[in-house]
């Protein structure tokens, strides 16, 4: 399989799905994961801890210019945008919110798409605004693989519906199928 990086975006209604994905991936899963999830901007701590409870993968909120390593999940910190840079490092920014969001899924997805091209898988989950639709379109247009959670299963389907409208999504899957897909990637 030629995919080397995975980026996941989500907002309202995605927390449970994310924790299930993280709990289902085996310890041996070594592709770097990027998580861009809408979150309360003034709450700095607690989110990584909550996501980590059942995760087999080490989750960190990177510092600016941190190098990207295997077997790690990088969670966009509160009140910062997270870019994936050429040269395999992360850079953060305090630029204005996009779609009322900082972190913005569009920014993380578009920069990852530009950097990783066809080596990237972009996955968009439940959410209440259209942030992420532009980003997943960028993943598609740079040759990456696009997956959207089935809107019928989403607690809030605004985000996934906007993504499906924005571009030709490769796979529309339930969360169980997304987990199967990721596990089978490494076989």
């Amino acid at each position: 399989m030629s995919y080397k990086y995975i980026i996941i975006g989500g907002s309202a209604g995605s927390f449970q799905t994310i924790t299930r994905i993280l709990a289902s991936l085996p310890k041996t899963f070594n592709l770097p994961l990027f998580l861009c999830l809408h979150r309360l901007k003034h709450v700095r701590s607690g989110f990584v801890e909550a996501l980590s409870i059942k995760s087999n993968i080490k989750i960190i909120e990177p510092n600016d210019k941190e190098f990207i390593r295997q077997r790690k999940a990088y969670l966009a910190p509160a009140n910062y945008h997270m870019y994936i840079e050429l040269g395999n490092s992360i850079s953060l920014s305090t630029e204005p919110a996009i779609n009322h969001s900082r972190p913005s899924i569009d920014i993380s997805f578009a920069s990852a798409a530009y950097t990783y091209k066809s080596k990237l898988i972009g996955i968009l989950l439940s959410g209440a605004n259209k942030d992420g639709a532009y980003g997943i379109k960028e993943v598609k247009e740079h040759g990456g693989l696009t997956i959207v959670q089935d809107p019928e299963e989403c607690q809030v389907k605004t985000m996934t519906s906007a993504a499906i409208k924005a571009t030709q999504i490769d796979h529309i899957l339930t969360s169980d199928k997304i987990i199967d897909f990721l596990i089978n990637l490494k076989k």
Partner: protein
Amino acid sequence: MNRLIIGISELKSLILNIKTNKGIDFSNYALSSLKRRVESFMLKFHSQNTEELIHRISNDQNFYELFLKDILVNSTELFRDPDFWKELKVYVLNKFKFSEEIQILIPECNSGEELYTLLIVLDQINMLDRVKIFLTSLSPLNIEKIKNATIELKKMEVNIANFERYHENGNIFDFFIKKGSVVKFNTNLFSNVEMVHHNFFKDEIPKVYNLILFRNKILYYNQQLKAEALKKLSQSLKPGGFLAVGIKETIEFPGVEREFIVISESEKIFKKQ
């Protein structure tokens, strides 16, 4: 977000042109975010391609000033990271309670919120009359905006929430007056503040500062410019002076790291040895 994507080589020719003709060097800015800001600027001003952008920048000084204003990130909040301001007060400002004069530098500053926040903190502990604050920006328009000291009313919700986390039961409107769709900061507090158009990386800075606020600036530099900035910041501080960077920024550089001791790990406050 609309789509307009420029290539790295186009971005590099733009950077080279500005460096040659305007004397400002963006070569070592963090690439992804710089590229996106250039693209957003081009969309906003209907520039079709970088050649046209370069042409307009070279021939129209006002247009160039607008470009600089947008490219230098000027978004922040009053009392961003309330815990930082609490710790700055306790571990830094209070240490100068009995000093005659405190020199504070806010370099590369593109929006007023850090300055207004600092002035509010100093005013509340009755130290305003003993500070000298020197604020610099590459952009004359941003200096003008900071002096003008207005903030859109719709941005105040987050500012008020931050302030209340800093100062329970405090009222931020002790320092701001509502005027239609904006609020205006009480500019009487500016009496010991000097704001100048200045190139931090090229121009000399006196080595007299007790405190430098440099939060969320390194984010926009690459590793090389970060190292340069840290060196310059360290040189501008007096021994025993303090440096604050953003809570997700680090100062781990050979040579620089050893010059500082950590005052607050979580709020990223350091003291020069």
